[in-house]
């Protein structure tokens, strides 16, 4: 299917993500930060759809925006105390933090400008199929011949079990 108005949507979603990210790290009120993070995650799901990855977009909406952020909002509401809004919100080493992040940014710029020759643009017309993306991801995960991530999948389920037990034990009053 032919994409429509790609630059407009890319810049719109990218601007939403950047503004959401800035709001996450600068708001005093944790609930406002959580709402800004939700907008960032939903804009990212839109970008995944533009990158012809609908399954990852669906997983992002249902897990990240619909699961993890609900967990964050629950915890914010259960332990949020009024005086956190009136306290100092940036710590004492904020300047060193920003300098370190700027150094990291300089490293990124250097890598992207010097390493651009490693990723030549594709030669022919790029046609992407998205009508069977879920089936192909499933083939890569589960299939006998083309799949190679079955073991990682099992370990991920074990990791989730450990996380469930860990979260329940940590939050109990008396073990």
């Amino acid at each position, binding site marked *: *299917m*032919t994409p*429509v108005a790609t630059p407009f949507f890319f810049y719109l979603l990218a601007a939403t993500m950047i503004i959401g990210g800035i709001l996450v790290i600068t708001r005093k*009120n944790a*609930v*406002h930060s959580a*709402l800004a993070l*939700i907008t960032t995650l939903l804009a990212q799901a839109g970008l995944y759809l533009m990158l012809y990855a*609908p*399954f990852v*977009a*669906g*997983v992002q*909406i*249902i897990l990240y*925006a*619909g*699961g993890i*952020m*609900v967990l964050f*909002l*629950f915890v914010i*509401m259960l332990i949020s105390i009024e005086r956190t809004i009136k306290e100092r919100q940036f710590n004492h080493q904020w300047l060193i933090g920003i300098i370190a992040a700027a150094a990291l940014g300089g490293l990124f710029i250097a890598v992207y400008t010097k390493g651009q020759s490693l990723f030549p643009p594709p030669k022919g017309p790029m046609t992407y199929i*998205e*009508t*069977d*993306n*879920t*089936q192909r991801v499933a083939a890569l995960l589960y299939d*006998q*011949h083309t799949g190679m991530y079955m073991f990682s999948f099992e370990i991920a389920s074990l990791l989730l079990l450990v996380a469930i037990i860990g979260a329940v034990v940590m939050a109990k009053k008396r073990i």
Partner: protein
Amino acid sequence: MHDLIQYIVSYLSSDKTPGASGNIFWATVYILLVFAGASVAVICMNWLERKILAHMQVRLGPMRVGPHGLLQPIADAVKLLLKEDIIPADADKLVFWVAPFIVVLAAFTVFVVVPFGPTHAITDMNIGVLFMLGVSSLSVLGIVTAGWASNSHYPLIGALRSSAQMVSYEVAMGLAVVSAILMTSLNGIGAYAVGGPDTSGIGTLSMIGIVQAQQAQHTWFVFKFFPLGLIAFAIFAIAMVAETNRAPFDLPEAESELTAGFHTEYSGFRWSLFFLAEYTAMLAVSSIAVTLWLGGWLRPFPNLLHGAIWDFVFSLIPGLAFLGLAAMCFYNVRRMPKHPFFKIQTMGLAGFGVVLGLIGIILFVPPVRVRVGDIFWFVAKVAAFMYLYIWYRGTFPRYRFDQLMKVGWKVLLPIGLGVLILTAAAGIIGLKMATPVALTN
């Protein structure tokens, strides 16, 4: 003008949804139609709920506002729009304003993938069911922020209870949905059989693909692997009532326990947004249930009563349904009191009957009859689910919150897991018995 008609006619005979063909104009038209349709459905639900609940409780319901209370929803809407807009003193104004919109957006965005027919959907995403479940889980965020932003303890408790309930029943819904998706992969599926002829064993998440799988397998999934399809359908039907905070799972918004829960502090237009979102979410999860288990737009008994004659008979049913409604209107016109005060109401009811009759006659015309049949069957099945919702509300007592969570986690989740494992086992055994060669590649 002639070009416009030509354009419309040439599009109406295409075989792709507007999203698949990248057509922005028709996608916009479909979006507006679905939006208007959902809003009209919510208004009808308002009237129907009050009348049906009243008749179940041996009383009459609203009778004054229009003939038999038909204008009651409009009166309610006018009242809600004219109410004073109160915000609590220390409430967070931005979040208080945003919360109803999150819930409404989440409820309406779901309709992008709902299939009213083989090509009558706004678009058909590859991840249709996953998208619907995910976006409907975003309404939990709106409820939690609404409860928190009201800065008062009843809304906060109601919001936390409501979101805990919705998150718990989403797990049971997800397991039931996965059982149904498993059933799509057990025979090769028609137009969505990707990758060539040897594709038995490949399922699909797309909504149109699921109904086409039911069409290709000649069975609705509620009857497949009896009783597994039925149990999965029952789990989803119970979980979807809890998901939309409706009776008997409506403790978070019960007036006698929590003074209306998370929308206590919302009045007027903002409350009507919550109301709109709740009924639209009911329509959305009913659409999922109809698509996954009840065959979507397929007419009843496609195998038992097949052939051109039965197709013709079943295609007359939409028109007959509307003519039946018109006949009911005229019967009630005769029963109206003959007092001069009631003249306008009688004329109004007769006019309504005439409009319904005209719609019924239009639905008999052959080109319209062929196109609208799919949409009619889908809407009829969703309407049956809406009646079930109202019936539950009039019949069952309310669950206490701990009983509610116990049912969600300790009853529905194990049964859902059991149905999933048994469905997978039944499918593998069926595949092995049918095609012993296909699994040894």
